């Protein structure tokens, strides 16, 4: 087992490299993914090693990127599209929503579109407008798309490879604020492939218990898993045992895993960076309440962004869900 300590970013690069190696039809396309290696260097070195043919600098047009990726996929390729920042996925929104999500359905299964759309997302990096947003809920509502977000280097490595082999389109949200965080990565871990007969569990649809606990369930994904874990640390020191569930996938959402936890703890706080209004936490709260109605000691509480555009960098840390705000919510849940 070749386990190494590496950054989240490098784990992604390793996952992309492994995907390019495993299948000739895998290709990377996007703005500046070639010589530059992308503005975050996630594709660093890949064009050099795999050629301009496999790692393609495209014109600056996101609809064009996703739209041509659909055509390439119809011809048997497996394009991995890089969107430069969260706020720049919207020119491609029509292609993603009306075409990428629906062609498998429209063709009654005749067309498969194994397209991955990688989107660095989330805030906390001191950036200007459009560079810190969390638009995942705007995709999870659309049937036909899988929407996932890894939280650890190991998951970055495993989930990107699983996304590439998935026959379904995957919106792959990368918590850019975690790119430089480090962790152990087993580079020999198997590629999780979904089977279409429903026999094996869906690798892009299963939550992970990031920390076991008994008094309250904290649910998070992507960048806020770290926030939830830090809150759990603080709570542990106070004698409160928090379980942390890393959702990993928003569509599908592993509700049974959360329900199982909440049935034990009786309390649930969900944390994400996106505005809570119409956000993923709403879906989770609605579902958990429906299925744990008699075990809940308090309503499911949501900690997230506010109903404002992502604010200027100087005050973004007041906008983002912090450890303190999670603790505040836990206090409120426990007070019930």
């Amino acid at each position, binding site marked *: 087992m070749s386990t190494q300590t590496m950054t989240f970013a490098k784990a992604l690069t390793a996952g992309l490299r492994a995907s390019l190696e495993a299948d000739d039809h895998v290709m990377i396309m996007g703005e500046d993914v070639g010589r530059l290696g992308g503005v975050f260097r996630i594709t660093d070195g890949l064009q050099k090693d795999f050629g301009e*043919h496999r790692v393609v600098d*495209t*014109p600056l*047009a996101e*609809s*064009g990127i*996703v*739209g*041509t*990726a*659909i*055509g*390439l*996929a*119809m*011809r*048997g*390729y497996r394009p991995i599209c890089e969107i430069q920042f969260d706020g720049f996925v919207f*020119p491609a929104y*029509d*292609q993603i929503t*009306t*075409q990428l999500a*629906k*062609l*498998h*359905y*429209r*063709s*009654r*299964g*005749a*067309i*498969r579109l194994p397209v991955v759309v990688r989107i660095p997302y989330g805030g906390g990096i001191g950036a200007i407008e459009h560079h810190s947003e969390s638009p995942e809920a705007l995709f999870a509502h659309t*049937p*036909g798309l*899988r929407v996932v977000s890894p939280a650890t280097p190991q998951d970055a490595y495993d989930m990107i490879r699983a996304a590439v082999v*998935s*026959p*379904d389109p995957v919106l792959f949200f990368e918590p850019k604020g975690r790119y430089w965080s480090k962790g152990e990565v087993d580079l020999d871990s198997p590629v999780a492939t*979904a*089977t*279409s007969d*429903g026999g094996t569990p*869906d690798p892009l*649809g299963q939550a992970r218990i990031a920390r076991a606990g008994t008094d309250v369930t904290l649910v998070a994904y992507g960048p806020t898993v770290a926030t939830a874990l830090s809150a759990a640390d603080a709570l542990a020191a106070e004698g409160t045992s928090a379980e942390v569930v890393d959702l990993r996938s928003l*569509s*599908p*959402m*592993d*509700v*049974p895993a959360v329900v199982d936890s909440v049935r034990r703890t009786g309390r649930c706080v969900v944390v994400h960076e996106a505005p809570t209004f119409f956000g993923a936490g709403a879906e989770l709260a609605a579902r958990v309440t429906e299925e744990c109605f008699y075990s809940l000691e308090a309503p499911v509480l949501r900690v997230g962004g506010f109903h404002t555009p992502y604010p200027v960098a100087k005050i973004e840390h007041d906008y983002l869900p912090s450890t303190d705000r999670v603790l505040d919510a836990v206090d409120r849940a426990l007070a019930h």
Partner: protein
Amino acid sequence: MNPDASQGAAAEEDLVQLVAPDGRRTDGEQAAAYRDRAAHLGTDELRAMYRDMVLTRRFDDESTALQRQGELGLYPQGRGQEAAQVGSGHALHPQDFVFPSYREHGVLQVRGVDPVDRLRIYRGTEHGGWDPADHNVHLNTLVLGSQTLHATGYALGVQRDGLVGTGDPQRDTAVVTYFGDGASSQGDVNEALVFAAVNNAPVVFFCQNNQWAISEPTSRQTRVPLYKRGEGFGIPGVRVDGNDVLASYAVMAEALERARTGGGPTFVEAYTYRMGAHTTSDDPTRYRERAEEEEWALRDPIDRLAALLRAEDRWDDAWAADVEAQADSLAERLRADLRALEDPASTSMFEHVYATPHSQVEAERAWFEAYEHDTAQDERDSSREAAR
């Protein structure tokens, strides 16, 4: 007749035409370059085109009638555009791939897509209707212009597969995408031009300018002839008389060959006319003049090819009667088979959302099946029933 006078003038000037409305072959300079492309077409080929045009029109008329009878929810007529579609379709090789919009009944006819399959979408039993791999024809795309990017991407795939410029006509492959004058304004179409040009993709942009985008004349989309659109992207353009099946064939044959041999994309504007309504839901009397329709009726593409066949002694009454008979049986089969189409099972709505299991879909499907089951068994009291 185009509301934009300047375009009308240009239309006549720049138009590639091989057969005049009276059925005689033209001899102008303009078309000289294309004449050779159609020179090899003998009686058999010309009759095959005629047949496809007649069958396309019969399909059109029959589908319109079926819609009136309530058998279809909607139908977009192709009348008037048969030459543009059948001519361009005949220039395709089997390995070429087509990305239509939604009005290309003539292209589907040429490619062999089953008539009933073409109507499933309008009957409301399927969103698609056929397997694209069967005839190398993608499904209809209703979001205007989106398919031009898919076609460009597919062409990039063909290029990567090494199937451009091999010199083997059985292998070299081109892609064509159809779209309308209205769709030309969409950002996607222009991005497709960018991606195609920069990569020299083997794709033909076939724009049917039928003068109208529902109620909007082409002058609301552009102030210069549309065939020029590609030039600023580095894509050569040509305007062809879309009511002239030979010219449509020849221009398309050249564009496809350019694509297959590595010459890159071409923008073809087929100048034609939508003789019918936009769809069966539309009422063109609200926005266009009868006189315009009548003037274009004189340029009917089927009449033109018939005139050519007669003028060149390629017409034969027995053969023509057989074509009519084929049309009759197409119509008959269409009526019967369409009516026989079964409605999909309600649970089929949960199928093919994903290629792999998705817990949300599965949970909802399970709920729905249980609900359907319960409802079927349920004996509710009458007051509740009444309110439904």
